[in-house]
């Protein structure tokens, strides 16, 4: 291969310059760190909020008027879990219960300094697409961004849950199937 030529077997680098990412984090240091990483990844527009309440105000404007030329539409939300003045939990509940699809289906990556299984499970059960445990690394952040771009799981809507399918893959089971929902009780919706 000639020097400088791209290997056709290698995935091409993404041009993220059209993307807008909202970073919701109360720590000034962590906001700076995440924003710097996103800038290095060539993300075009990075918005910053310091708590869930601020983020709700921003998303209400950006997503509700998504067709306006003057207002940037947020593509991915990176949110801390614990923040005074509006936690990540409150923000995620607000997003997943919103009546506008532009908000309800948004890809959300929860970035948390809490490593307990309880927090990770809470984030997953409230509809987070991905979780990332602090201290964050460039590789970890890049991998979560790639996941939301390349593997957008279908959303599940049941009485007790609304969010991305929590099963990441279909695995064959070699034991008794105890699932109560029958195939004809699942309605498949394909949005355009």
């Amino acid at each position, binding site marked *: 291969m000639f020097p400088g030529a791209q290997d056709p077997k*290698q*995935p*091409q*680098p*993404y*041009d*993220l310059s*059209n*993307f807008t990412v909202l970073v919701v984090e*109360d*720590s000034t*240091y*962590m906001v*700076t*760190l995440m924003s*710097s*990483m996103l800038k*290095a*990844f*060539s993300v075009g527009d990075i918005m910053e909020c310091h708590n869930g309440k601020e983020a709700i105000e921003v998303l209400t404007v950006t997503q509700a008027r998504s067709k306006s030329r003057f207002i940037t539409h947020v*593509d*991915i939300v990176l949110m801390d879990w*614990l923040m*005074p003045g509006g936690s990540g939990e409150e923000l995620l509940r607000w997003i997943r219960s919103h009546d506008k699809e532009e908000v309800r*289906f948004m*890809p959300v990556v929860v970035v948390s*300094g809490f490593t307990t299984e309880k927090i990770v499970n809470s984030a997953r059960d409230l509809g987070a697409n991905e979780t990332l445990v*602090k*201290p964050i*690394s*460039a*590789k970890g*952040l*890049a991998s979560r*961004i*790639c996941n*939301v*771009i*390349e593997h*957008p799981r*279908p*959303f*599940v*809507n*049941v009485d007790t849950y609304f969010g991305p*399918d929590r099963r990441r893959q279909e695995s064959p089971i070699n034991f008794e199937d105890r699932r109560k*929902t029958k195939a004809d*009780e*699942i*309605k*498949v*919706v*394909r*949005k*355009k």
Partner: protein
Amino acid sequence: MKVELIHLPNRLLQKLGLSKREDEKQAGQVDPEAIEEANRLVEKMKKECPAAIAGFLDELIQVWIDMRDMGDTPQRAKLSERAFTLAHEIKDLAALSEDELTTYFAESLRDYIGETELNLEAQRVIIQAHVDAMSVVNKQGIEDAESALAEELKQMVKIAINKYS
């Protein structure tokens, strides 16, 4: 219908002007050189962490001085929340800069404040032990979490917790 399974068009991939065949694992990647650049930024920020931790620790000490002799008031509850946030912030920065010992004490303090009411004499001793331990680590720049001094500090905090729990 019990369950609705909603398939969405992949708007992010569309925005990138890309598509992904079913048999492909990956459509693209974040530029490896950009990841390297981001890593360099992290390394640079790590160097700023000890000074930032010292600033948060000073604020934590002040918050603790202000609240420790207060009665059960709304103001105390606010200060307690601030102490929790500061401990959490110190833990994040310490973890980022791979300062194991400060991460250990800050996480222990954060969890302790989060789980208890802070108005008992016993708890005052425990909080003070954590604050003292972190101050020593920060001022003396102790890096080895297994050193004799590190073990002594951990022991001091453990004794405080065990004695009053």
